[in-house]
């Protein structure tokens, strides 16, 4: 197994060849904000929160899909990066209807905690206030599209881990929507195995267990990682 040495935020670290910059940073105890990244499923580099600066490259690169290379110098925390990260979150808050006070995920929401962490105290853009429905037709789970940030973590865990392919993205642009089968009610889905992995994956309160009240939606995401490691790497002790 060959290793690569690199510098992240001035710290010399070594990482396995083929590892992502995000993995290398996490191992070295350096926290990079992420939203669409989920341990256990493949990365798509879509949320742009983990963008980092690499010396000598004038484009910002997503840490989750960029592989480590010998001698690169990575900056994960700069005035400019944090400004862009705050703006990305502002855009998300303005895009759909995120009302923390009445959300099942309040206090356990990745979007919320990222906003706290980056010191975001208000949104400067006009709220779009789109009308999105809530699908509560499933026996066990619900989906509130108002709180969806289109990270596609549920789509990926449904396909990659469960293998059901019940969820996918329909439409495009701001009209994109997470669907069940042929855009039908979740309760009518024939392919859903009711495994709940999508609910476990959701970073916000968009997917929830029925019956949970405000702030009750805690999720054990390590289970997803455990399954994948057990299955693919034959590692039963995650």
């Amino acid at each position, binding site marked *: 197994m060959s290793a690569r040495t690199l510098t992240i935020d001035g710290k010399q670290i070594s990482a396995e060849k083929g590892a992502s910059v995000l993995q290398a940073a996490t191992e070295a105890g350096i926290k990079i904000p992420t939203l669409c990244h989920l341990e256990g499923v493949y990365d798509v580099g879509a949320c742009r929160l983990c963008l980092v600066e690499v010396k000598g490259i004038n484009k910002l690169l997503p840490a989750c899909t960029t592989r480590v290379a010998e001698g690169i110098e990575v900056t994960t925390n700069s005035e400019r990066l944090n400004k862009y990260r705050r703006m990305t979150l502002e855009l998300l808050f303005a895009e759909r209807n995120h009302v923390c006070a009445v959300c099942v995920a309040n206090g356990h929401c990745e979007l919320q905690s990222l906003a706290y962490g980056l010191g975001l105290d208000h949104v400067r853009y006009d709220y779009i206030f789109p009308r999105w429905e809530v699908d509560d037709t499933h026996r066990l789970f619900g989906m509130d599209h108002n709180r969806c940030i289109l990270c596609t973590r549920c789509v990926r865990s449904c396909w990659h881990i469960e293998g059901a392919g019940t969820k*996918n993205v329909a439409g495009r642009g701001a009209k994109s929507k997470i669907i069940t*089968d*042929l855009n039908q009610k979740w309760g009518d889905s024939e*392919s859903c195995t009711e495994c709940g992995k999508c609910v476990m994956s959701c970073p916000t309160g968009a997917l929830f267990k029925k019956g949970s009240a405000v702030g009750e939606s805690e999720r054990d995401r390590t289970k997803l990682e455990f399954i994948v490691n057990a299955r693919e790497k034959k590692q039963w002790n995650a």
Partner: protein
Amino acid sequence: MSEILATNRPLPAKPASGHASGDKRFKILEVHIKKLQFKQDALIEVLHKAQELFGYLEDDVLLFVSHHLKLPPSRVYGVATFYHFFTLKPQGEHTCVVCMGTACYVKGADKVVAAIEKFAKIKSGETTANNKLSLLTARCIGACGIAPAVTYDGQVAAKQSPEDALAKVKSWMEA
């Protein structure tokens, strides 16, 4: 011995042919899918053919495609709604597609759209209540030399003024 084995073995289920409704178009679609060797990467080709046959992609058709290509229905629906060219709603008897590419836009295509919208009392992307007319806009049909271009039922017409377009649309509505 081998004969016994062969007879005892349950016969493989005959692949479902056509569609329960007996609609012949499903049969044609099936032949097309076969010609494409049931390849999953041919999904867009298959959807083109399906829309050509049915005029639009209803749930039944999407499900048929999904079963025949062995793709999750959500994948098929996701692809069908990603591309502008596919429509999941039935279209009117006639379609009028106004090109809204830059060249057409600077030469007044927006006024053509506005005139038809006002006359037919529909917005672009909609079909009139009497099902005579669907009004659509295109991103650029590459006929910039003859801007503004409008496609009436598949026929491209050059240098259209709001009056030209209205005359054509009126003739359809009154027919």
